[in-house]
């Protein structure tokens, strides 16, 4: 058979082939490097938080940070650092938010999954999810310029900045999250279970409460826990609308500062690098990080551990 390819062409082919093989081997390495950026981010977050927190605890004792009640980081003569006022504000605002988000989110989920017609669901669901797309800064503006003044008409003793109004608005922000995760859980309950309940004569409501919700409970509870995590980490709404009062109190009509709002205040304020106030930032941030991490892991655990498989 006659040789149809010249030698130079063969060399070219060979070279192409080896280049292709190099590419074939090199690409996964490059992709791995790209993938490790996300791991490095986690490492970076942990390292910065831990290293600077250690610096903080060389100046301030654990006892003062976790057990005393005074938070006056910028007091020149006698600064004091206690996380309790920030923690109480965070827990209060989260609690208020969940009081709003859980009932509205869950009933919305039940309505969309059990009662609404296909047509109604197709219209309502994206509209509810628009609430999740609104930037938090816009919610902050809304809480500060609209919700607080309206609430002050009803509750005259409410301060101009308070924890109640941002708590409520945060709850509204979290509704779509609770609603859409709970709805996913409810819709994954097989129809045969609803039909079984109804064949026994249950009304839709009875079937939902006695059969569908218990079957979807793990997903529903997980959605609440994720909502809590979201509320703990929420920053702009509380920064704008709840002020910067660092007193330890449980009076929701007063100004309070959450952990997140404290971080914003200190970073945008004039605590210079190397001061104790600056390091306190990282101790607070690490506490915040651990709280949200614990909530996220708890949510994952609940939805895995208690999921009913059909």
């Amino acid at each position, binding site marked *: 058979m006659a040789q149809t390819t010249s030698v130079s062409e063969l060399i070219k082919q060979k070279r192409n082939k080896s280049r*292709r093989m190099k590419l074939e081997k090199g690409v*996964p390495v490059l992709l791995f490097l*790209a993938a490790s950026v*996300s791991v490095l981010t986690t490492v*970076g977050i942990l390292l910065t938080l831990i290293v600077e927190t250690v610096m903080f605890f060389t100046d301030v004792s654990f006892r003062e940070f976790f057990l005393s009640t005074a938070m006056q980081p910028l007091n020149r003569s006698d600064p004091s650092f206690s996380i309790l006022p920030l923690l109480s504000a965070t827990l209060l605002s989260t609690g208020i938010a969940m009081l709003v988000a859980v009932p509205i989110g869950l009933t919305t989920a039940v309505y969309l999954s059990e009662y609404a017609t296909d047509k109604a669901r197709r219209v309502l669901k994206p509209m509810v999810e628009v609430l999740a797309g609104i*930037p938090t800064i816009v919610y902050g503006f809304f809480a500060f310029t609209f919700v607080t003044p309206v609430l002050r008409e009803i509750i005259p003793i409410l301060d101009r900045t308070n924890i109640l109004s941002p708590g409520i608005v945060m709850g509204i922000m979290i509704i779509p999250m609770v609603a859409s995760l709970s709805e996913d859980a409810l819709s994954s309950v097989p129809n045969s279970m609803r039909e079984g309940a109804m064949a026994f004569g249950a009304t*839709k409501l009875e079937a939902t409460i006695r059969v569908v919700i218990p079957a979807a409970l793990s997903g529903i509870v997980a959605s609440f826990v994720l909502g809590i995590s979201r509320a703990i980490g*929420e*920053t702009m709404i509380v920064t704008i609308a709840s002020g910067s009062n660092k007193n330890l109190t449980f009076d929701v009509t007063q100004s309070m500062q959450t952990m997140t709002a404290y971080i914003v205040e200190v970073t945008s304020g004039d605590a210079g690098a190397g001061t104790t106030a600056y390091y306190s*930032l990282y101790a607070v941030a690490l506490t915040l990080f651990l709280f949200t991490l614990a909530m996220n892991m708890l949510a994952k655990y609940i939805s895995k551990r208690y999921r009913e498989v059909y």
Partner: protein
Amino acid sequence: MAEYIDHELVHKRLPRRIALNKTVRGLFLASTLSGLIVLAVLLFDVIRDSWGWLDWQFLTSVTSFSPEQAGIIGAISGTLWLMMIVGPLTMILGVATAVYLEEYVKEGRVRTFFETNISNLAGVPSIVFGLLGLTVFVRMLGMGSVVLAGGLTMSLLVLPIVIVASQEALRAVPSYLREASFGMGATRWQAIRTVVLPAALPNILTGMILAMSRAIGETAPLIAIGIPALLIPLPGSLFDSFTVLPVQIYYWTIDAALTAEYAYMAAATIVVLLVIMFLLNATAIFIRNKFQQRF
């Protein structure tokens, strides 16, 4: 035969049970609508406050202490600069990570490790990313609060979203397409580059745009890296100071206690921000409907 069901009792209770079902149905619908009503009130409030402030002069002027002269061109250009970093960077890193996990690693501990890490990262509050940016980019690498530092911080924040969206897009590409290209003699990378990625592109782009719209609205991390409250010159390079729309809204909102007009300017800026986000989302939906292939 023994009577197992007391029919009389059942019939006596039936009307009440049915009525309760109907009432609750109405209540649940009202609850669903209540969220939407708040949304409507929010939009109405913002638009009413911005009325009369949102004009050409406002869109094209630099910021100023005097409300009549102030504008948001600086914040708009800062937002665009930020997107020029976040867009390409997260696209490259996000898609590369997704390809690695979906096409190369596939299963096992390595993948579980990466995916656990990514899902945990997605749950970290944005303000913590701001502290990371402040510590590493602004202070350690000595960049200062410049466009590049903000862009890198924001890229790390939205990267998990892009990765997850890209993974889903790749997973939606049926394996027979890959197998067909292997059958034609393609190597793995050739199959990915010429067959899998093009097929996944519309869904990847949709996820990208949604991530961008998240990045545009994000405020806290940028405040943490120290963006100044009042900034006159427009950014001209990656190493210039900058501000963005949400940060401008923040400073005007908290200063509204001093000068009432600032609240209206904040509202006008919110309208601009929401319009930009609406356009981005509309584009994402358009791309999805127009180019999405069903396999």
